[in-house]
C-alpha cells in the first residue's frame, strides 16, 4: 500500500477543494428535490402529467428518480476526481 505522505500537499488541498465544491453542488440539488419543488406542490398540482397531478408526481416519483441519479452522479464524479489527482486507491 502506498503511504499517504507520497501525495503532495498542494494536490491534496486542491483535491479537497474540488471535492467540497462537488459536495455543495450535490447538496444544492438534494435541497431542490427534497424541499424546493414540494414547496410549490399546490401550484404544481394544477398541471396534469400522464394523469398525475404534477405536485403529487414529483413527491411520489420525480424526486425519487432524482435521488437515484444524484447518488450515481456522485460516485462517478468523485471517482474521476480521485483519479485525476492521483489519490484513488490502487
Amino acid at each position: 500500500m502506498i503511504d499517504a505522505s507520497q501525495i503532495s500537499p498542494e494536490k491534496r488541498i486542491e483535491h479537497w477543494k474540488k471535492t467540497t465544491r462537488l459536495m455543495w453542488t450535490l447538496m444544492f440539488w438534494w435541497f431542490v428535490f427534497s424541499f424546493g419543488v414540494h414547496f410549490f406542490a399546490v401550484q404544481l398540482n394544477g398541471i396534469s402529467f400522464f394523469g398525475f397531478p404534477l405536485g403529487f408526481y414529483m413527491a411520489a416519483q420525480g424526486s425519487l428518480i432524482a435521488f437515484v441519479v444524484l447518488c450515481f452522479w456522485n460516485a462517478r464524479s468523485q471517482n474521476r476526481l480521485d483519479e485525476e489527482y492521483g489519490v484513488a486507491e490502487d
Partner: protein
Amino acid sequence: MATNGIAIGGGGKGGFVANLGKIYGGYAGGFIGFTLLLAVLEQMGLPNKIIGYSFMFLTIAVYAYIGYLSRTMELSEYYVAGRVVPAFYNGMATGADWMSAASFISMAGGLYLGGYGGLGYVLGWTGGYVLVAVLLAPYLRKFGQFTVPDFLGVRYEGNTARFIGVVVLFSASFTYIVAQTYGIGIITSRFLGIPFEIAIFAGLLGILVCSMLGGMRAVTWTQVAQYIILIIAYLTPVVWLSTKLYGIPIPELTYGFALTQIAEFEAQLGIVKPHAAAFVDAAGQFSWTEFNNFWALVLCLMVGTASLPHILMRYFTTPNVREARLSVAWSIFFIFLLYFTAPAYAAFAKLEIYSNVIGQPIANLPAWVQNWSQVGGLLTITDANADGILQLKEFVINQDIIVLSMPEIAGLPYVISGLVAAGGLAAALSTADGLLLAIANALSHDVYYKMINPKASTARRLIVARVLLVGVALLAAAVAGTRPSGIIQMVAWAFSLAAAGLFAPLVLGIWWKRTSSTGAIVGMLAGFGVCLYYLIATRYFDMPLWFGIRNISSALFGLPVAFIVTWLVSLVTRAPSSQMQEFVDSIRTPRGQVAWAGAAHE
C-alpha cells in the same frame, strides 16, 4: 487487511464471492420455480394452510442454511463480513436492511389513508441516501474500523464520545428492533395460526439463525436473499393488477389513470379531502401547519436515515472507498424500486374501493371484502342507517390490509398471498437482524472490548459478541411480547433521536477539522437532550407543541442545537492536535493508510 481478506476469500469462500451472480440468479430462479409449483399444486387442490406453511418454512430454512454456511471465528468476518461485499450486492443487502415490515406492509396503507401527506415518508425514507453517499459513507469506509461509535471514539479522542455514541445508538435502535420483532410475531401468528406469544419466540429463532454463527457475514448474505424475495413479493400482485386494469405491466405509470378516476369519484362522493391535494387539513383547506409538518418530517427522516448505525455500518463491508460510494447508489436504486411502487398500491386499492365497494348493496360486496371483514378488526362494515347499501362512513379499513389483500383484489390465487407473507417476513427479519447486530456489536466491541477489557482475546471477544446478541434478541422479544402501545410512533422517534444525537458529530468530524472533542461531546448531549425533552414533554406531559410541529419531527429542534453548540464550543476550546488534523486528512483521501496509531490493529 482488505486485500488479505479477498485472497482468503472470506475463509475459503473465494469461489463464493466470485460466483455471486450465478448463485443468487439460481436462487431467484429456484424461488420462482417453487412458487409456480405451489400454484400448480393449488389448482390440484392443495389446501391454503399447507401453502402458507411451505412459504414460511422454506424461506426460513434457506436463511438458516446461509447463516450456517457463513459461520466464522474471525473478527473481521464477524464484524464487517471480511470487507469483500461488492457494491451491487451490498446495495441489495442495504435495501433489505432498510425496508422493514413498516415499509413493506404498512406504508402503502399509510398512503391510502393519508394521500399526499403520506408521501412525506416516501421522500424522507429515500432522500437520506444522498446525504449518506455525499457526506459520510466513503469517509467512514476509509476510516475502516468496526462500528460507528468507533469513529466517534477515535476522532473525539476517548471513551466519553464513544459512550455517548453507544447510548444514542441503543436508544434509537432498540425501539426499532422491538417493533420489528412485534411485526414478525404478527405475520407468523397470522400465517401459521399459532398464538402471538409463541409466534414471537419462533420469529426470534428466525432472527438468530441468520446472525448468530456468522455475524455480519451471515447477515449480509441472508439479506441479499431476503431482498430478492421481498421485491418479487411486492411487485407481483400490483404488476398483475396494472396489466388487468390498463393492459400495461408498469403500475408506476398506469396509476396516474387511477388517480384521475379517483378524483372523479371524490367529486361524486363529496369527499372534502382529495387524495392528491397537498398540505390540506381534514376539511380540505390549505393549512400552514400541515405545510410545515410535511417538510419538517421529510428533513428528520432524511437526516435520521443518514445517522442510523445499522445502515452506516453496511458501508464498512465493501472492499474499498470506491465501492462504498457506488454501493450507496445501488442501495437507493433497490430501495427506490419498492418506494416508487407503494403509491400505486394505494391508488389501485382506493379505486377498487370507490368503484366496487362503496355504494354497493352490502349483500353483494366483493369476496375479498367479505373475507377480510371476518378477520378481527382489520376491516369493519356497519350498516349504520340500515339501508342495505354501504356508505363511505360505514366502511373502516386498517392500513395493513392494503398490501395483504392486494392479491385477492387482483383476483390472484392464494399462492400469491403466501408469497406476500414470505416477503413481509423477509422484510421484518432482515431489518431486525441488521439492528440486532448494530446494537450487539456496539455493546461487545465498543463497551466490552474498548472500554472494559481491552486485553480480551479474539476467541473471548467473539463469545461475548454472541452472548450479547442472544441477550439483546431475548430482551427485544420479551418487550415485544408485552404488546407495547404506540410502538409505531416510537419507531418514528428512532429517526429523530439518531438524527439529533449522531448527525452533527459525524458530519462535522469529517468536514470541519476545527471540531474539537469537547465541542462534539457537548453538542451531542445538547442536541440529543433537546430532542428527547421535546419527545417526552409533548407525549407524556401535555406540553404544547412548538410552532405546531408534531413530536415525530422533534429532531427539527435537536439538530440545529447540536450543530450550533458543537460549533460554538469548538471555537472556544483548543483546536485538535496536528496528529488529529492529519488523521482527518487521511480519511478524506482514498489512497494511503489511515493516520492513526490504532489503524493497523484490526
